[in-house]
């Protein structure tokens, strides 16, 4: 299965940029993280922390109709790089089917071409975000299946 179309576009958009403009593009995405819905704002206990990120970073996923995935991120403004990753994943994955999200290669971020501007240890943060996000989706898909069987 292919990557969700919007995520694929974002990856190509980064890859086409000269290296010195990729950071600017990431900064742009850091400004596009949607605010948390009211039920999650200030409720980090209802979200999962990603300790691989070096700053407090939290995520929550929800499964809607037709197995469409909604993802919420809580990342502090003083960590624009991590917020930028959140912005990419938010825009690239929100509304995609669960199966599409699970099919995103874990190393997709290497195609963004950020390795020359961001250190490898920091880039692992984005891999960790995706890994934890997928794990949540798997848990929810399994829970749905269980419920369907009981019905």
């Amino acid at each position, binding site marked *: 299965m292919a990557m969700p179309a919007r995520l694929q576009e974002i990856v190509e958009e980064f890859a086409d940029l000269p290296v010195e403009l990729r*950071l*600017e593009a*990431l*900064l742009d995405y*850091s400004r596009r993280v949607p605010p948390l819905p009211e039920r999650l704002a200030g409720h980090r206990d209802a979200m999962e922390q990603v*300790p*691989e990120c*070096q*700053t407090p970073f939290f995520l929550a996923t929800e499964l809607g109709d037709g197995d469409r995935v909604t993802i919420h991120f809580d990342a502090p*403004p*003083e*960590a*624009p*790089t*991590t917020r*930028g990753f959140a912005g990419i994943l938010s825009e690239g994955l929100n509304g995609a089917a669960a199966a599409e999200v699970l099919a995103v290669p874990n190393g997709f971020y290497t195609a963004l071409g950020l390795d*020359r*501007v*961001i*250190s490898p*240890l*920091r880039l*692992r943060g984005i891999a*960790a975000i995706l890994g934890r996000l997928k794990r949540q989706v798997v848990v929810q898909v399994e829970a749905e299946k269980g419920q369907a069987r009981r019905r």
Partner: protein
Amino acid sequence: MSTAAELDPAPKLDAYAHPERLVTTAWLAEHLDDPNLVVAESDEDVLLYETGHIPGAVKIDWHLDLNDPVERDYVSGEGFARLMEAKGIRRDTTIVFYGDKSNWWAAYALWVATLFGHQDVRLLDGGRQKWVEEGRQLTTEVPRRDTADYPVVERDDAVIRAFREQVLEHIRGDGRLVDVRSPGEYSGELLAMPDYPQEGALRGGHIPGAANVPWKRAANDDGTFKSADQLRAIYEGELGLGKDDDIVAYCRIGERSSHTWFVLSQLLGFQRVRNYDGSWVEWGNSVRVPIERSSEPGPDPRLKAVG
């Protein structure tokens, strides 16, 4: 030759061994236009400078600017000279470093500049956090500084930098070792978490004999350094470090231990302090080096050698 910037006369700084290594936010705000002073921001987050920085400040990125792109090492003398020239810094320029995370990376950049013998390097006490919290001016405008001439100076790794082999020697002799990571990283517990390899090291724990003093103990909540008396109570009182001790500090990749290196050598005036920048990412991946996996410093390797 133009003269170096004057010193910050703040009383707090006066109590440190080298008050000339620190400036306060209030002093810096008044000296942004000093002709031979350059403010340099060095952050963990590579995008933070772009979101707004101290007016006139240049960006020095630890990963892109200070590390060799291929080998795990710092740039060469030529590389450092090119960097300084591009940032408009001359050999006699006063560089004031500041950054996020209580100045981890700023201290690291200052330490690297010291490897190249740049004389007048200072840290902004409290770093980026304090400047922002005081509501001081920020700008997204990148300064256009004229390039400057900077000589090619060979890096001196002998005095303030330690390598793995030297650390092995160090723990067999009477060297003192300070692990500045969190207690969980020190005991090895953090690497033991199932499914979440985090630190890029195959083994967890610490170098035998190392005392655990997390870097954070030297900082106040606002990012400033603790007072000279408070620092002495920790490192001389609790830890029993003496002025002539041979001391090595390490963390995971050498950034947090740059902070402690600064405290020990510049603020407290210990004479022999080295930063082991290979740190845990190197030690915890090395074959056949001793590791202690507990929350205690562990057996003193000297005793083992005798037995």
